[in-house]
């Protein structure tokens, strides 16, 4: 009797466990979002998205798919990157509810959250059971990009990070290796420190001169170099502020060294590199004219030829280096998670639940995986599952190295400074870079910049900013461990 009872209970228990598990399996966050969204059939939600290539995702793929599954229409408001913050704030101040969901750069989070423009998402995450899948976002993004003041304000949706791309064929060419050894006394290898980088780059430029190839090039325009400065400065041990006094410490010797090194490096890069932006740098690399470069993940996909056949990408120069590209962490080993995007909800939205369901669906395991694999996407892998997905690995022969590098980068990465009015501080840095290229003295530039930073901090309120900075600095990705 006892045995049968026990067997019966076990069976029932197993059955319950099985159904619960299968129910849990069946109800992914994506499915749950779709299910809950049925009651909003026929409504329209508006989402702000970066104009250009980025918005092809909601316009051509995710928007129409969502409408098919739920009957909810998605209106995409394309906004140029430089205008996004402005438009979001303007709408918030006007309070009309014109925007429901938003794409937000993590460095804007403190400002937008403190101004009250963003809706805290904790309640929604609980209500719609998103905790599990939220946890599965790669820790570096999950822990650094999602919260402000301890509350969730955005779902990290784009794994931006700086990766080094190098020409495997050049680094493995015996003749070049010999010439390099003869010139420098050590073996040719992918540089792990910035000192090595300077040496390797200049030697390669000399060796490859007859072929009109340069050792390296970067996008040296101020907006991009500003991120590079944040990366290198911290990799070399620099700190942005003195945590006690909140005095800016970017004009330390480390800062001066970084600026001086950058300027010296330009000497072995193609002339005019100071004008280069994202596309100029890409074009040169794709045409095989540079042996090393650093940029965001899309370079890796396009250099391999993935997606570049699509009409939407017909502006990308055709890759001549497919199959010859290697991937590595940038010198210093702690790459910058530069820029990036979170999905958020506007606090003045009149359709918060509906909008939240849409972004939960977008950000979920199932759907995000499909989205990062779209040929035209600019969204980079950001979930643990993305890095190991069989479908992704099969996209091109070296994809496994690519994904491994992205994963390593996510483990060691550091993210953008984000405090109150971050853009003001960033603007000072951008201008400092501009002055650097104009030929001014690095120490003078940084002293002026530090002075401006102190002025900004004073205007905001030292104590206020100190608290926000402390919050930022306490995160895992603030300074290299």
């Amino acid at each position, binding site marked *: 009797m006892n045995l049968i009872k026990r067997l019966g209970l076990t069976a029932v228990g197993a059955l319950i466990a099985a159904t619960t598990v299968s129910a849990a399996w069946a109800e992914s966050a994506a499915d749950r979002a779709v299910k809950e969204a049925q009651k909003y059939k026929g409504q329209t939600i508006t989402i702000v998205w970066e104009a250009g290539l980025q918005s092809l995702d909601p316009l051509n793929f995710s928007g129409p798919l969502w409408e098919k599954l739920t009957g909810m229409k998605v209106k995409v408001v394309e906004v140029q990157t430089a205008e996004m913050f*402005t438009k979001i704030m303007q709408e918030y*101040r006007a309070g009309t509810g014109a925007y429901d969901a938003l794409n937000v750069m993590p460095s804007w989070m403190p400002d937008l959250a*403190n101004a009250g423009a963003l809706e805290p998402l904790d309640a929604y995450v609980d209500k719609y059971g998103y905790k599990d899948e939220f946890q599965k976002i790669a820790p570096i993004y999950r822990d650094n990009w999602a919260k402000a003041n301890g509350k969730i304000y955005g779902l990290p949706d784009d794994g931006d990070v700086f990766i080094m791309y190098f020409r495997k064929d050049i680094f493995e060419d015996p003749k070049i290796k010999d010439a390099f050894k003869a010139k420098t006394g050590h073996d040719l290898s992918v540089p792990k420190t910035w000192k090595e980088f300077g040496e390797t780059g200049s030697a390669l430029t000399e060796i490859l001169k007859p072929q009109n190839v340069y050792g390296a090039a970067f996008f040296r325009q101020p907006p991009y170099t500003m991120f590079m400065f944040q990366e290198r400065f911290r990799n070399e041990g620099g700190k942005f502020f003195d945590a006690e006094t909140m005095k800016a410490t970017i004009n330390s010797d480390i800062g001066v060294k970084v600026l001086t090194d950058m300027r010296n490096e330009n000497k072995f890069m193609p*002339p005019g590199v100071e*004008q280069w932006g994202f596309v*100029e740098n890409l074009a040169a690399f794709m045409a095989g004219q540079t042996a090393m470069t650093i940029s965001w993940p899309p370079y890796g996909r396009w250099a391999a030829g993935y997606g570049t056949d699509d009409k939407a990408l017909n502006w990308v120069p055709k890759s001549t280096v497919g199959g010859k590209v290697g991937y590595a962490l940038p010198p210093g080993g702690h790459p910058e998670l530069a820029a990036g995007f979170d999905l958020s909800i506007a606090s003045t939205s009149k359709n918060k639940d509906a909008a939240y369901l849409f972004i939960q669906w977008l950000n979920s395991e199932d759907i995000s995986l499909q989205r990062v694999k779209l040929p035209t996407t600019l969204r980079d892998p950001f979930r643990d599952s993305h890095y190991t997905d069989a479908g992704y690995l099969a996209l091109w022969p070296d994809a496994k190295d690519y994904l491994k590098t992205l994963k390593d980068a996510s483990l060691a990465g550091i993210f953008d400074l984000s405090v109150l009015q971050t853009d003001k501080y960033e603007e000072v840095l951008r201008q400092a870079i*501009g002055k650097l*290229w104009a*030929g001014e003295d690095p120490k003078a530039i940084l002293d002026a910049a530090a002075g401006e930073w102190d002025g900004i901090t004073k205007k905001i309120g030292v104590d206020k900013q100190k608290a926000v900075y402390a919050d930022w600095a306490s995160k895992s990705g603030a300074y290299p461990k």
Partner: protein
Amino acid sequence: MTSASPFVRSVIARHPSGRMPDHNFRYWIIAPSVFLLLLIGLFPLIYSLVVSFQQITMTDYDTSFAGLTNYAQLFDDARLWQSIAHTLIITIIALPVELVFGLAMAHLFLERMPGRQIFISLIVLPTVISPVVAGATWRLLFDQRYGPINQVIGWFAGHEVVMLWNITPHLVYPAILICEIWQWTPFMFLILLAALSNVDKSLTEAAELDGAGFWRIFFKIVLPAIWPVMAIAILIRGVDLFRIFDVIWALTSGGPGTMTETISIYTYVQGFQQFESSYTAAIAFLIVGLMSVIVIWAIRRMGLAK
């Protein structure tokens, strides 16, 4: 009526009390314009004035009365005054160049010549392009790697030249000025051409027969005749140059550093990137105040409102 003296006629024209339906004519015909101008001109002005006395910044929606703090801040703001200086430099150089260049071109095309229409239609193209695109186009033209200008200079110099037009301090202003003059000289050209065409030919021909030289005729007959239109063109172009934004934004974004930052760019940065709403309103009033003084002086000096 036609036999009445000009004085009488002008009196009647100004006080047509003998023709009741026409008495209010002059007011009816300005009504729509005034209405629109008030709608767009008055409310924002009042709003901006109010805001400039408050303390609204990006994160602080503080609407308490702050007195003249924002205005006091204006005087300490070195960057503001630098931006005004930058704006003046551009205006003072570009305006005369566009004027003289446009006038010369208008003279060139004044007389008939076969194909004149085609030349004119094509030359006017730069003005027709959006300033944002014009700035971007010249940015590409000046590009070290992908632009033809440095390539051509290299041909003349015999070797490859490295001129970073939008970054190097001594090249940025020439770059901006070239783009700006390129885009707006056709505007002056067209207006002056229309004005020159209206100059009474019989007068100039008579003067020629009398033996007067080209310059004499120009300064004594032509210039006074085209002055009303030319003065307005100068004023309008001058005001537009003072507000210059798109071209510089596309070429240099106000850089390097803040070297090419004009007053409009600085206002934009403060208002739309830093969201210092109240301070921006104060800046706006300063600009409006300055410009009103200058323009009113110019108008009275040039006798435009008579």
